[in-house]
């Protein structure tokens, strides 16, 4: 394992410290229990947005704390969901009286820990569960689909509504809507290595890729032979389209997300190839996001997320945001 680290035990803490120090103007990091808040307190009457999850997906969620997005983020250990005490401490700090909206990716660990926090909480709270990953089937017999990169989109759009006075119920409803309007799928060329493990999560051949991979390096739909970028992109988009069924002339957000070890150049190439295919289907790319937002440590790979946009979503996507990882208009 080759990582910039001093010890597996201190990995998370030192990284958080660096993050906090580098972005003092935007965030405050708190320790024991660990959580990240905005540098300035939630303004009165504003719904507080709290997300969290295992670490290793940076900049999600800490890098999305700030004006127009999250009020707080709770980072767990690498790939382990955070614990109720983190969420409770964060909620206590950022709840300004208008209630707390938890944004939770659909993994049983995250769901159960956030649920326990919600049950223990005094004030009003709601949760949005993201489950945009079309790689896995959503049947009534399973826990359902995984929450992946669309969580970033949910946090941006709901963050804007909360900033502009949306109520707790309105924020929850919008979050559910964005989630329902989104589909994602990813592919990995290499594994990732959890610092405590010291060795890759899975083995993969020189000519193989994991198609439909999860953001923890979990196995996906199938192990496949390497293919051209256009073929991979087409297959990812087909899987998403099958689920999301965007109509011709429908406006979408095209979000090409890197898993951590794939350079920007390749992400833009995927964007180009995706545009080729979407153009052919007359699906209108109205907004774009390209970069490493929902990562899996140093995994080489990428995911594509499509979100169907209407006027409401467009407005909240475009509104100002000022976080460490996403910033515009301010």
């Amino acid at each position, binding site marked *: 394992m080759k990582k910039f680290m001093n010890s597996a035990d201190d990995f998370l803490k030192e990284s958080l410290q660096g993050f906090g120090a580098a972005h003092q103007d935007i965030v405050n990091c708190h320790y024991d229990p660990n959580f990240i808040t905005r540098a300035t307190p939630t303004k009165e009457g504003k719904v507080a947005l709290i997300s969290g999850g*295992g670490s290793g997906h940076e900049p999600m969620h800490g890098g999305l704390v700030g004006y127009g997005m999250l009020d707080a983020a709770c980072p767990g250990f690498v790939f382990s*969901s955070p614990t*109720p005490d983190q969420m409770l401490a964060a909620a206590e700090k950022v709840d300004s009286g208008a209630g707390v909206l938890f944004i939770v990716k659909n993994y049983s660990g995250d769901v*159960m820990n956030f649920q326990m926090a919600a049950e223990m909480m005094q004030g009003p709270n709601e949760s949005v569960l993201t489950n945009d990953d079309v790689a896995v089937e959503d049947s009534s017999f*399973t*826990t359902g689909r995984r929450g992946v990169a669309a969580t970033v989109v949910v946090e941006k759009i709901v963050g804007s509504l909360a900033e502009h006075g949306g109520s707790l119920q309105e924020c929850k409803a919008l979050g559910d809507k964005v989630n329902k309007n989104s589909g994602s799928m990813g592919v990995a060329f290499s594994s990732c290595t*959890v610092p405590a493990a010291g060795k890759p999560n899975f083995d993969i051949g020189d000519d193989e890729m994991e198609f439909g991979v999860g953001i*923890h390096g979990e196995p996906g739909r199938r192990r496949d032979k390497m293919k051209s970028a256009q073929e991979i992109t087409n297959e990812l988009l087909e899987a998403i389209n099958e689920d999301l069924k965007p109509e011709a002339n429908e406006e979408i957000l095209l979000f090409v997300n890197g898993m951590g070890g794939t350079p920007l150049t390749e992400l833009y190439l995927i964007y180009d190839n995706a545009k080729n295919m979407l153009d052919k289907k007359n699906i209108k790319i109205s907004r774009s996001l390209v970069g490493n937002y929902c990562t899996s440590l140093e995994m080489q790979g990428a995911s594509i997320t499509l979100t169907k946009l209407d006027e409401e979503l467009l407005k909240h996507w475009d509104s100002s945001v000022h976080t460490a990882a996403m910033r515009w208009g301010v």
Partner: protein
Amino acid sequence: MSVNFLIHSAKEIQAVIDANASEIEKLDQEIGDGDHIFNVQRGIKLVIELEAVIKDLPMSKALNQIAMKVLSGIGGSSGALFGTLFMTMAKGNDIDNGVDYKKAIEIFADGVEAVKQRGKADVGEKTMMDVLIPVSNCLKKGVEDNKDVKEILKEAIEVAEKAMFSTKDLLATKGRASFLGERAKGHIDPGARSSQLMIKTVCESVLNS
């Protein structure tokens, strides 16, 4: 069951889990995200570190401290589930006046029931419930049937082991492995394995005492 017994068991469990660490790690890498072993090891370590704090506390308080430590120190599915187990056990009726084996079995069974509620998983879904529920049933039945405690514990060890192996050929419908469909088959569930090892260790500890 005394607080001392809890601490002593935690230490024994630590040794057993450490000895089987690489196997458990591999199981969660195959059908999960690879963190289960670290979650469990971290949890046990934290509980053992509580020794000085809890050793003179009444049972309910000690269990509650353990529950909070597990809940706040582990994370992931297993943190929430094991936390729920201990939280529920801590609420057991009248436990500060001594916990005999019947009482112990009663609060354990209550705990398992709460874990089942929390995770909404039943037997056959390829989770730790595949071990916890049959073991809980076996223990309860043993008490009902007025069996000898040694007999009951020996049976529990066997039931746990069989149940653990049974997860191998199941499709998963809860937890991370549920995302895998057919690909989860052929792998033992990591939480089932760690639970089985813990149960075995505690039962043997009683048997050998």
